[in-house]
């Protein structure tokens, strides 16, 4: 699996993998704006009708929806809390025993929030699955993202998995010296210093070496930089961008006028 460390990017040869990251970013931004401004949650949910063919065309359909299923409990909780305890609720749906009341506007509010989260997550995940982080950073650099910031974004994505491995080694080393890392709260708190001490020192050392490695490769050279990955904006990108913007505006207007 071509999984680049922490990122969930999946290398596939699909129509949308070849679309410029900025185009996909525009789609994502439009969806986020829409989900905050559309009048009715039905209009928000309707956006899902669009993502399904897009995800199929991107060859990542099931993956796109996978995080949603992991969060079903959160959605249940959301409906429960808002349904029963919405602070400004006025419209009763049903009275239940023990003085509990299920509120209609509470449920509507929950549905609105749920739809928002749902849609943003699905589109967001589709974006991550189909967009190579290197391409994203290089495209962003071209429209003004600072060089150093771009590097930080990319390297963070890659270093976290290494961090995790190192943490595991330290845990193993200290457990071999009889440290209890499980058990009650006090025991866990006690294990904090032996685990974080070496991790911190190690990270400092790594940071020093890494910055030397960067310097050795002319990181702070002045003058224009180039990019190994080149994501150009093609005609199809322009077409998709125009469609996205036009659709967003019409959908927005529609939701408020109908």
């Amino acid at each position: 699996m071509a999984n680049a460390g922490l990122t969930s990017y999946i290398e596939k040869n699909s129509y949308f993998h070849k679309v410029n990251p900025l185009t996909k970013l525009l789609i994502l931004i439009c969806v986020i704006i829409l989900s905050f401004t559309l009048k009715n949650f039905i209009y928000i949910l309707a956006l899902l009708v669009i993502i399904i063919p897009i995800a199929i065309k991107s060859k990542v359909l099931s993956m796109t929806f996978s995080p949603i299923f992991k969060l079903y409990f959160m959605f249940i909780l959301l409906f429960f809390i808002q349904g029963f305890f919405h602070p400004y609720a006025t419209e009763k749906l049903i009275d239940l025993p023990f003085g509990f009341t299920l509120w209609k506007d509470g449920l509507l509010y929950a549905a609105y929030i749920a739809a928002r989260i749902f849609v943003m997550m699905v589109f967001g995940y589709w974006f991550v699955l189909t967009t190579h982080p290197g391409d994203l950073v290089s495209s962003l650099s071209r429209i003004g993202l600072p060089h150093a910031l771009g590097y930080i974004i990319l390297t963070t994505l890659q270093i976290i998995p290494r961090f995790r491995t190192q943490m595991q080694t330290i845990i193993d080393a200290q457990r071999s010296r009889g440290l209890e890392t499980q058990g009650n709260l006090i025991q866990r708190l006690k294990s904090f210093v032996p685990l974080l001490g070496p991790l911190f020192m190690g990270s400092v050392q790594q940071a020093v070496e890494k910055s030397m490695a960067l310097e050795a490769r002319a990181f702070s050279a002045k003058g224009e930089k180039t990019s190994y990955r080149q994501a150009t904006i093609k005609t199809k990108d322009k077409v998709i961008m125009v469609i996205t913007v036009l659709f967003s505006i019409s959908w927005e207007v529609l939701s408020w006028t109908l």
Partner: protein
Amino acid sequence: MSIIQVKNVSFEYFKGVKVLNNINFTLNKGEVVAIIGQNGSGKTTLVKHFNGLLRPTKGEVLINDEDAVKKTVAQLSHTCGYVFQNPDDQIFNSVVTAEVAFGPSNMGIKSHELKVRVNEALRTVGLYEERDKHPLDLDLNQKKLVAIASIVAMRPELIILDEPTTGQDHAGLLRVEALINELRKNYTVIIISHDMNLVARVASRVVMMCNGEIIFDGSPKEAFTKNALMKKTYLKPPIITELAQSLKGFKRDVLTVDEFMDELKTKLKK
């Protein structure tokens, strides 16, 4: 008498990917066993089963005839002391003595007894004079010795040294070699090493691993004559052994310069 018995052990990190494949291995008291093989051959994975850091997917590991599964890592550490490769992965105290005391105090050892153990361990590794220093002020050779002392102070029956000579210079190398010879008097020792000179000098037994299997288990002399196996694991015997093997009529299991000279003398007499 055996300390460790590994019976038909297989281990997988992910389903279907065997890192250890049907390992059988018995470690007897007083041995100095060298586990050799290239990175990724399963050496570290195997020894992590001895103190419970890893649990077998299949098969069983007996520590002093008791099933290791029933014990925690902390409990097993009383028997099996494991010194990790990189001392920086474990050093966190600001004084050498405190660092060495960490292990035994986790075992519940206190006050006078603790002090005795720490001092003894520091004397064993030759760092007693350095006891009040900050570990970060020590050089690489000495940091390694702190890590070893911190396990010695726990007084386990078995001490596992993972790559004890990596990053050491010649002086450090000699120190580690002398230390292993000191440890073997009171402990059973396992070393994981790529350093064939060290293996030739200290090991009483060599276990060669390749792709998660033990492909050889025997004496160092025998190990270094198994050229095909050595090649398979990308290992080279010590240069003196290679020299003897390259000469017609010489014994193939020469391990030291002394042995080589003896061999040469007998050849010259003829």
